[in-house]
Structure formats: structure tokens, C-alpha cells
């Protein structure tokens, strides 16, 4: 109980003082996770939509695999990306290891299946409703899929948020490929891990409260956006 109270106090103190280290860490967390979400969405939405509207052999298998990849352990993704980016690995010459770019890459790989699988489900459900009408009007599959995706954009926001939540919360991938370097690749989750292992549980918990609050605010904003759109467009 005492630790929790200290945690709340530490969190409050850090935020009120706009502690520069804290600001730096939070800023990097947001930059990395949001970049990963943007990149993953750009790849995952077309992928999910394409699978949703196409018929091809092995479609069911692809869907099952995609759903299963939602549960990729972050630390495994981190390990694989590390081995790829290590100097001893195939992409070592790019010198990307232990940089925020590597963290973005790892998180993008991690959340791409989540956004794609959820998008596929949403698009497939909407496709059942829209398909006949769009084809009747003369839209080819590709055009129809794009129209559909834009029409259900606020529902797809839910898929994107799920990806953001995963990215912001994970520590395994960014720890391994980023190295938790002070001032360079330290984000909220790795900072929390560090403070925990230093035994400063109150500070770790305080950082945790800040992280959760941040994600909560993002979700609340998105929810209100969805509600407003629902009222306006029906």
C-alpha cells in the first residue's frame, strides 16, 4: 500500500515538474509507437481488406495464420529483428541496431498482424452488406474494397487502436533491439523495467501510471471521435 502511495506521489511530482528526462522518455515512446502504428496501418489495412474481399485457395489457412500471429511474443520479434540488424546479421551494414528506427521496425512487425486481422474481420462483415450494391453500380473489386474501407474508417480505428495499445505496452521487442540506452532508446516501458530492477518500485509504478494514463487518453479521444462520426453519418 505504501509503495502504491509513493508511486502516485512520484508520478504526480514528475508530471507537475515536467521533468525533462520524463518528457524525453514519453516523447520517444510516442514517436516510436505512433510511427509503428502509422507504418503498420499503411501495410495492414490494404492486406486485411484484400484478404476480406478476395477468394483464393488457402484463404482459410491464411486467415487462421494471421489471427495466430496476433499473439506473437514481443520478445521473440525483438530477437528476430536483433539477429537481422546485428552487425553479424544480414542487414548489419545498415547500422540500425540500438536506434529508434530499429524499435519502430520491431514494433511495426509486432502489430501488423493485429491490425490486419481485425481489419479483415471488419471489412468482411461490411463486405457482406455492401458487396451487391457496389458491384451493381459497376465497382470492380479493388475500387469496391477501397470505398468500403473508407466508409468503415471509424470502425477500423478500433483495429488501429488495438495495435497502438500493443505497441505502447510492450517492452520485450524494444528492449532487445533498442538496448534501453539512456537518452537515445529509453522509452516508458524499458524505463519501468530498469527502475523495477533497480528496486525503485515507486518510481517504476509512477511511470507505469503515466503510461496507462496516456494510452487511456488516446483511447478516450478515439472513442469520442467514433461517437461523433456515428451521430453524424449514421
Amino acid at each position, binding site marked *: 500500500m505504501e509503495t502504491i502511495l509513493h508511486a502516485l506521489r512520484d508520478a504526480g511530482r514528475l508530471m507537475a515538474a515536467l521533468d525533462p528526462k520524463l518528457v524525453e522518455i514519453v516523447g520517444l515512446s510516442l*514517436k*516510436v509507437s*505512433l*510511427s509503428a502504428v*502509422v*507504418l503498420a*496501418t*499503411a501495410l495492414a*489495412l*490494404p492486406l486485411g481488406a484484400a484478404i476480406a474481399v478476395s477468394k483464393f485457395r488457402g484463404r482459410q489457412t491464411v486467415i487462421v495464420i494471421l489471427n495466430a500471429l496476433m499473439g506473437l511474443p514481443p520478445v521473440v520479434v525483438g530477437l528476430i529483428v536483433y539477429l537481422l540488424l*546485428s*552487425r*553479424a546479421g544480414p542487414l*548489419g*551494414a545498415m*547500422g*540500425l*541496431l*540500438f*536506434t*529508434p*528506427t530499429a524499435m*519502430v521496425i520491431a514494433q511495426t512487425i509486432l502489430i501488423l498482424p493485429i491490425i490486419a486481422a481485425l481489419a479483415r474481420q471488419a471489412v468482411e462483415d461490411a463486405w457482406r452488406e455492401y458487396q451487391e450494391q457496389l458491384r451493381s453500380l459497376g465497382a470492380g473489386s479493388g475500387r469496391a474494397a*477501397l470505398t468500403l*474501407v*473508407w466508409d468503415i*474508417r471509424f470502425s477500423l480505428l478500433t483495429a488501429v487502436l488495438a495495435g497502438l495499445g500493443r505497441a505502447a505496452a510492450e517492452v520485450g521487442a524494444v528492449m532487445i533491439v533498442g*538496448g*534501453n*540506452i*539512456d537518452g*537515445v532508446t529509453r522509452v516508458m516501458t524499458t524505463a519501468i523495467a*530498469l527502475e*523495477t*530492477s*533497480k*528496486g*525503485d*518500485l*515507486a518510481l517504476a509504478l509512477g511511470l507505469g501510471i503515466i503510461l496507462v494514463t496516456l494510452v487511456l487518453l488516446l483511447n478516450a479521444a478515439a472513442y469520442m471521435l467514433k461517437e461523433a462520426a456515428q451521430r453524424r453519418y449514421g
Partner: protein
Amino acid sequence: MDLKRRIVLAAALAAAAVPLAAQEKFITVASTTSTEQSGLFGYLLPIFEKDTGIKVRVVALGTGQALDMGRRGDADVVFVHDPEAEKKFVAEGAGVNYKQVMYNDFVIIGPKSDPAKVAGGKDVLEALKKIEASKAPFVSRADKSGTHAAELRYWKSAGVDIAVQKGPWYKETGSGMGPALNTASSMGAYILADRGTWLAFKNRGDLAILVEGDQKLFNQYGIMLVNPAKHAHVKKDLGDAFINWVVSPAGQKAIASYKVGGEQLFFPNYKGG
């Protein structure tokens, strides 16, 4: 169409905003979690940067992992505390410009209730024998770290074949110093720790230093450059600058002046020209 174009544009902007490998001068140093958690780097590196303009990026792992990082070429400099492993590293040709630069010491931490009755002792080997005899809970890092290597050496010197004689009382956590201390604190166990991490550690619970001062507990640190002959991209000049600074009078003085709670943690002992 609109949506897709918008997203791709945003992605491109975001990627551009994420800073690529900076144009600034920096080196990557593979070191250990205990060194980082002692706070030494937070104190020392700004001084070095001010003197030379070189930034140091520390990736903190266990000693074994740090040396492996050096072998893979993912670091420019390796800074750890396991002389046997370091000498092997250099003998393999993986490291050059090897210097022994400072030492800190280990202590035996344990519960104040001290079931094995080791408190106040001056001999680490005696203490370990008593702990094994009483089967009191003992936490081992078991993670290829310098601390772990030291712990194994002590068991051996104490005449205990730990691989055979360990039992449920011997807890191998496979973790860094901090998490291992967390575990020891929550179960009231004995543990071998470096003084630096202990002094910075905040979750002590019922633990305290029970055995210290034995010469055998001194923990020697070494620093070396990853061999540029094996990895052409290693920043030889900047890395050497760091090594030479650490062993210079200025560097050695900075090490000695780092204190936690008024206590000096690291003792510079570079000998040689």
C-alpha cells in the same frame, strides 16, 4: 484513393521524423547491468563528453552477453568485470587495447535474522560454507555475468561443488543484479552482490550487508576495443579515445570521485603506461 495516399504520406513523414543514425560523434559501449545500475555511467560519461565531445551510448547486459555483443561487432568498446573471460576474449582476437582500469567489491547480503550465522565475518569462503551447510535460501544470478562467474569461483574455492550440492535452497533466477536482489528481498535470502548496485537499490526489505572487506571479494574491471581488424565499422579512434581517457589521470580521478551515500564505490587501479 484518398485514404491510402494520406496514410502513405503520413508514414513517410513519420519515418523522416524518427532520427536516423545521428551525425554526432558517438560510440556504443557494451557493459553490465550492475555497472549501469550503480550510477557510474550517469556520473562519468557527461564528464567524458564535456572533455572530448564524444557521446557514449551504453547498452547494459550481463558480462557474457556484453562480450558476445563485442564478438558480433554490435559494440565499439566492451567494459565488463570478468578478467578470465576478458583475457579469453582478447586471446581469441576479438578485442584489442585491453586495459584493467578499476575495481569495486562484492558483498554478501542476507536477512538480518541471519539463519546461517555469517554476519560480521571477514572471510567469504567461510560464509559460503556456512550458508551451504545450513541450507539457508541463497539467490544466484545464474546469467553468465561477471558477478555470477565470481560467485561460482567462490563456491569452488570454498570446496563446495555447487552444481552437485545445490538443492531447493539455491535459487537460480537467470536475471540481472537488481531483479535478483528483488527476489532475495522478497524471500529473505542470501545473495552475492556488487556494492554499487546494493547502495543504489531501494527495495531492501529485511536485507543488510553481512560480510564485506575480504580481499577475495574485489571485483576487477577491464575495458577493451572491439577488434577493428575483425569488424571494419568499429569506431577505432573514438573508442580508443574513450579507453585512453578512462585510464588517464583525469578519468581515474573521476572514477574515484563517484560516491553513493557518501561512499566511494569504484577504486581506480590502472597500472601502466
